[in-house]
């Protein structure tokens, strides 16, 4: 019995060490971002005092990019715009596709499902060169619309696959009873099925949002000018400059971490269900 108790404490300690390792980079990011400028070249682990100057400079000084003009709010806004529009579009088309694949029986259903699954796990870097050509061809380089379109490559298959899984878990009888009541298929989906599957749709939307939010490769090949940058490219531009300002860089990183982290932690219960629904059935 006593050995069991020791065992338990040991296991708890292992978990605690893991928690500390998780904390390590975050500790540095927060303390560097809150450190006053003069403190940067001292080799202290703890800052001498705390200030929000870096955050303030990033937004109001407008020189993170090496010239006066673009506030860090601009990449933040751009990332939001891209993520929201890519997510909005893909949720709409994926709801229809996912529903059809889960509820209708038709020839080629399995084929389409596999096609979507293949697209879901396809690594974007294989086609990045061709997509660069494509975006140049249609004249959408250096535009947020271009980035949002490319993000569909990632987001649409993901949403469709996940929603298909979710709709599969809804009893078919629900749709049937709705249709007996005189609904069309579309009516059944909109009036009966969607309200019950709101959690599934919402978590698919949140995941799509974060997938688009953290995508870097496509932004890298599409965007050119500072006022079009999304967050990852804006941060990269701060690293690649001749001089890195760590305080502002960490402040920028924390700003880009916040939205998905808050979304996830606030809606954890849903998310965990969604996370497993995508990979594990139900």
């Amino acid at each position, binding site marked *: 019995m006593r050995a069991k108790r020791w065992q338990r404490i040991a296991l708890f300690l292992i978990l605690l060490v893991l928690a500390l390792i998780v904390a390590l980079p975050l500790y540095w990011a927060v303390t560097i971002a809150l450190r006053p400028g003069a403190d940067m070249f001292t080799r202290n682990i703890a800052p001498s005092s705390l200030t929000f100057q870096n955050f303030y400079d990033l937004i109001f000084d407008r020189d993170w990019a090496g010239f006066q003009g673009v506030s860090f709010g601009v990449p933040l806004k751009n990332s939001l715009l891209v993520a929201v529009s890519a997510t909005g579009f893909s949720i709409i088309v994926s709801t229809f596709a996912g529903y059809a694949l889960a509820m209708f029986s038709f020839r080629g259903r399995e084929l389409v499902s596999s096609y979507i699954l293949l697209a879901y796990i396809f690594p974007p870097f294989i086609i990045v060169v061709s997509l660069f050509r494509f975006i140049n061809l*249609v004249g959408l380089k250096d535009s947020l619309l271009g980035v949002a379109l490319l993000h569909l490559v990632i987001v649409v298959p993901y949403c469709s696959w996940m929603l298909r899984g979710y709709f599969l878990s809804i009893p078919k009888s629900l749709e049937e009873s709705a249709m007996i009541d005189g609904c069309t298929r579309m009516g059944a989906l909109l009036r009966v099925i969607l309200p019950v599957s709101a959690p599934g749709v919402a978590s698919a939307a949140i995941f799509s949002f974060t997938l688009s939010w953290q995508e870097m490769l496509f932004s890298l*090949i599409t965007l050119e000018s500072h006022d079009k940058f999304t967050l990852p490219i804006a941060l990269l531009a701060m690293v690649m400059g001749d001089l890195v300002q760590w305080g502002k860089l960490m402040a920028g990183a924390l700003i880009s971490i916040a939205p998905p982290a808050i979304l996830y932690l606030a809606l954890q219960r849903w998310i965990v269900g969604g996370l497993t629904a995508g990979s594990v059935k139900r």
Partner: protein
Amino acid sequence: MGVKRIIAAMLVLALVLVGAGPAMAAPHTLKVWIMTTFADAQNNWVRAKVEAWAQEASVTVDIAMLPRTAYGEKIFASIEARTPPDVVLMAEPGATLAAELGLTIPLDDVVEKIGRDDFYPRVLSAVAAPDAVTGAMRIWGIPMFFEIRPAEIRMDLLEKAGLTIPAKPDYEWLFKAARAMNDPPKVYGLGHVLGRSYDAHDNTMALIYSYGGGLIADRGPNGADIFNTEPTWRAFDDLKKLYKEGVIPPDAVAWGDYDNNLALMGGRVAITVNGLSIYYKMVKDKNPLAEAVKEVPLTGAWIDNAGGESNFVFKSTPVKEQLGKDLLAYLMMDKEDYRVGICENSQLYALPVFKSQAQVISQQWKDGKWPVYAIDPTQAIETAYNSWPTVYPLNEATSVVEKFMGAYMLPEMMTVLFTRETDSKKVAEDISKALNKLLVETYGK
């Protein structure tokens, strides 16, 4: 019912896809790229100038400010995809390649308009190349400024090591001083960048040139054999030794263009060789070490970017081409404004390409305005090597060195000297072979 809605939604998507592209590129908008330097004052000046010109000429301009290091990838990719901008300002690589491919227009008339006689001849020769069709020498870019690369030395540490700056400091002396000042891991003697960066290319080439070596001798298939000779081996061996002894910090193999700056500013290295960007930044940040740093030009190893930072115009429509030329002339017509905006604003990181303005700077130095310079900065203009796109001993601009440098081939290929202790001769041979391959690809057999 439902089906119709879906079809309508798809039609909208198709319309967006097809319609958005052409609609975005209005015919008379001039697409201007500005490569940002790290001196924000310079960037602000150039952009304000472009905006002022657009207003005066009532032209719509679409300005894109590109980060310094991403610029190389972007300009070459846009040339590959045939979607370049109309005008490029402050460009580093790309001008020569675009000219050799016949994608840009000659700018001789712009030079005349600004005043050919006032330009230093060497700055114009760095951007001159034969026309692909007629074979006549034409000018393909308007050089923006000279960038000089002296050694930044911590005078307090030098004094502590019991050394003074000799009349003609060269690399041999610099290495001796670096060893004397070396006190790792607190302070390393020499902050020589060895990672994927422009600095690693510039500083290593400067060292090789100062040992009497070369990069490309002619445009033939064996033009780069000169690189695989004794001066290169010696330079590689010296760097290898310094790295092994711990005079160059161990992480220098992973350094980028900013890391040596950060190291000097953080007091981690005693010496580095860089443009005056370091000093500019230290003054701006009120870094206490700024007072201890002196800019010391090395004999025989001065290097500058004549023709490196330059402005050029891509071929498009006659109207736009003319507008582009007007803009280029406008930028440099008011030479006083140019001197303040580009040179003085950057703490003389940039030196003027005009003789008249160099004289003003020279007088200012004599009056004690630029104490950080150990000697008159304008003297550098006469004694320096052009770093690129000019190569030695060929002494002409070539796109081969733009590709070589833009792809960071030298730093990438020489890393093995330090990480795997590969033989210097083997590395030099590999690099000269890669260069020869580029020569064949570009100019044929």
